[in-house]
């Protein structure tokens, strides 16, 4: 081979090899992830299970997500004549709050809804829908959204009310250190909703293990749990004394499965998603696993609107506040058409007055500094009633709950499969 030939072939090979690699990559089995060092990953965190493309956030292993692109520049004017595209769970924001924002910023709005987080994520992934604000995002899907480059980093200069109005915890949340991509929307706990006219508060509070009330045969056929595998199994884990709500321990999950199945024969338990705010006021359920926000809003669904019927709604959460706690977030999608307006909207929702107005309607508490949990049960809301009725004081979320409570976080696919199998076993029992 002559030197000229060698050079020609080397040049050809240098051109062809990347192409060949790309070709081989295209021919590779679909769904196989290319291995990348953690240093090149989308974020930094100490809990990075094998096979996971990103670190998983835990209360004791926070995650800092890298900025995959620069946030928008500071000091830009909001887009003029824009239509703010909001993507949210159904019935999870009061339109009054959005209308007031649009009046202040001279814009229109459009709300598109989803019914569960998977659906929300699936629509986002298409890239065809261009939303300005993605609301109600649970922290357990942030890894997917950021790794998939579906969110844009936030410019904090547009959102001063997060620093001034929102709990200290959310100045640096464990699932998004330095809040690169999220602002908190609502906080809530999972406890037990019940009919106070049938179960005195003292009875449930006096039980050594109040979760056992789900097995009380007196309420046969009128007991419900959420139709949600994480919530249902978490309740069984807590009943069994297991506080790690992200456990991958097969033994604990099997025990939780048996615990749940025993509910079927004991009380003919039912799974529902609206059993608290519709079922308890109507009398379809006497006891139901309950998100604090659902029971706070349930008074709006009582068949008769008076204090007597509102007083039938009860909520229990552990007195030591060691129960299941959560929060939802608001984010800005990467392909937002009005990112400046979206930043202002996020700030609007972080402002005390607006956040509390929204709380009045949807029942899910914003993490506002001024919304002192001690006074929420006495301060009158827009409707003239307390934000939270005094007898539902357990449903008020405290900032300290996020230090004492237990968070449901993203599971590895293998652990998630164990949880799903347990849920299917319950459903087919």
């Amino acid at each position: 081979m002559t030197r000229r030939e060698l050079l020609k072939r080397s040049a050809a090979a240098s051109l062809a090899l990347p192409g060949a690699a790309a070709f081989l990559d295209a021919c590779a089995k679909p769904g196989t992830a290319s291995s990348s060092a953690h240093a090149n990953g989308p974020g930094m965190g100490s809990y990075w299970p094998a096979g996971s493309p990103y670190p998983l956030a835990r209360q004791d292993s926070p995650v800092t997500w890298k900025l995959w692109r620069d946030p928008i520049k500071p000091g830009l004017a909001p887009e003029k004549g824009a239509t703010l595209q909001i993507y949210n769970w159904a019935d999870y924001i009061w339109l009054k709050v959005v209308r007031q924002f649009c009046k202040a910023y001279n814009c229109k709005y459009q709300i598109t809804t989803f019914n569960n987080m998977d659906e929300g994520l699936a629509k986002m992934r298409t890239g065809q829908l261009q939303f300005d604000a993605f609301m109600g995002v649970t922290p357990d899907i942030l890894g997917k959204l950021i790794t998939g480059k579906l969110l844009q980093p936030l410019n904090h200069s547009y959102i001063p009310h997060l620093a001034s109005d929102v709990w200290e915890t959310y100045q640096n949340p464990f699932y998004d250190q330095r809040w690169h991509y999220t602002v908190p929307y609502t906080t809530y706990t999972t406890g037990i909703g019940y009919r106070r006219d049938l179960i005195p508060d003292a009875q449930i509070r006096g039980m050594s293990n109040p979760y056992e009330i789900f097995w009380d045969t007196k309420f046969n056929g009128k007991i419900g749990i959420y139709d949600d595998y994480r919530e249902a199994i978490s309740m069984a884990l807590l009943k069994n004394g297991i506080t790690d709500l992200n456990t991958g321990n097969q033994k604990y999950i099997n025990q939780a499965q048996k615990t749940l199945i025993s509910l079927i024969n004991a009380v003919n338990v039912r799974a529902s998603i609206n059993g608290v705010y519709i079922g308890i006021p109507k009398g379809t359920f006497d006891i139901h696993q309950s998100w604090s926000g659902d029971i706070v809003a349930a008074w709006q669904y009582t068949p008769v609107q008076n204090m007597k019927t509102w007083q039938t709604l009860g909520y229990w959460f552990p007195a030591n506040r060691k129960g299941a706690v959560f929060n939802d977030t608001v984010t800005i999608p990467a392909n937002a058409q009005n990112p400046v307006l979206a930043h202002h909207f996020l700030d609007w929702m972080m402002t005390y007055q607006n956040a509390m107005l929204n709380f009045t309607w949807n029942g899910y508490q914003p993490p506002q500094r001024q919304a002192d949990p001690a006074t929420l049960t006495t301060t009158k809301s827009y409707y003239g009633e307390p934000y939270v009725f005094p007898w539902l004081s357990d449903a008020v979320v405290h900032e300290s709950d996020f230090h004492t409570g237990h968070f449901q976080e993203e599971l590895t696919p293998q652990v998630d499969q164990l949880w799903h199998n347990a849920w299917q076993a319950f459903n087919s029992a």
Partner: protein
Amino acid sequence: MRVLPRKRPREEATGGWYPRWYWPGFALPGSLWILLLFVLPFYVVVSIAFGTVDPVFQSPLPVYEPWWWTSRYLLEEWHFVTGEFRAVELRTLAYVVLATAICLVIAYAVAYYVARFGGKRKGLFLVLLIAPFFISYLMRMLSWVELLQPNGYVNSVLTFLHITPHPINWLAGVPFTVVLGLVYGYVPYMILPLYGFLDRIDQSHLEAGRDLGANPFWTFVRVTLPLSKPAILASLVIVTLPMFGDYYTNNLLSGSPKTTMFGNLLDNAMEATGQGPEAAVLVLFLVVFLMIPMLYYMRETAKAQRNQ
């Protein structure tokens, strides 16, 4: 003698000459319909069942190249279908058989009455039969949820008449309620095809039966019923196939694991992150199972055509 060219068969049949593709061409729209709306989507389901999930989003990732297919999910679900899910499968079968039988009795009686005794009011009856289709299935089920509440009208009537001393919790995982819901939801789909067929039965057949000495009952048993067998089979197929995949009737009227149907297992898998292939495999199992009544129906229909 001049020999005329022999007519080709299709000229003899139609009286004119058409290109070879002319008559098969009429099957083209239907074939395209089946290709686009059945074959291709079904291949996507198969590709998901034998595919994988996205490593980041955990969403189903269809694998269209059969050489990359994996039987992992098939084997996993086979384990469940032949084990843990057995009770649900048997329950679904029982509910569907019972609901279909009740549907058939109601639908046949209604269709027979309208076809034979509708007279001038046939049009009105037909409108009434179609009326349920104006209201969505979901809304009709929700109305039952209201009626069957512990303090709903059904319990009010039952306690008022002293049929039951206390209100019955119909919505607390009662199999009867689920079967009732299935019957209520699907019976209109059975009435219409039955009516369409019964209305076309030649009256002379019935008259012949009576002339030969059969009373109205035996005329029905020996003439009407055998003649309407193809319609019965067709309406059974129309009703049972969707019933097997139904999940919302149970979700709305029960919600209890005691009444879980196969469709609920499918729905659970569909709703769950990372469970897409499992859901697709369950769909395939259901399709294979439903092929049994479908093949029986096709065999019977073919036999009936041969006999004609």
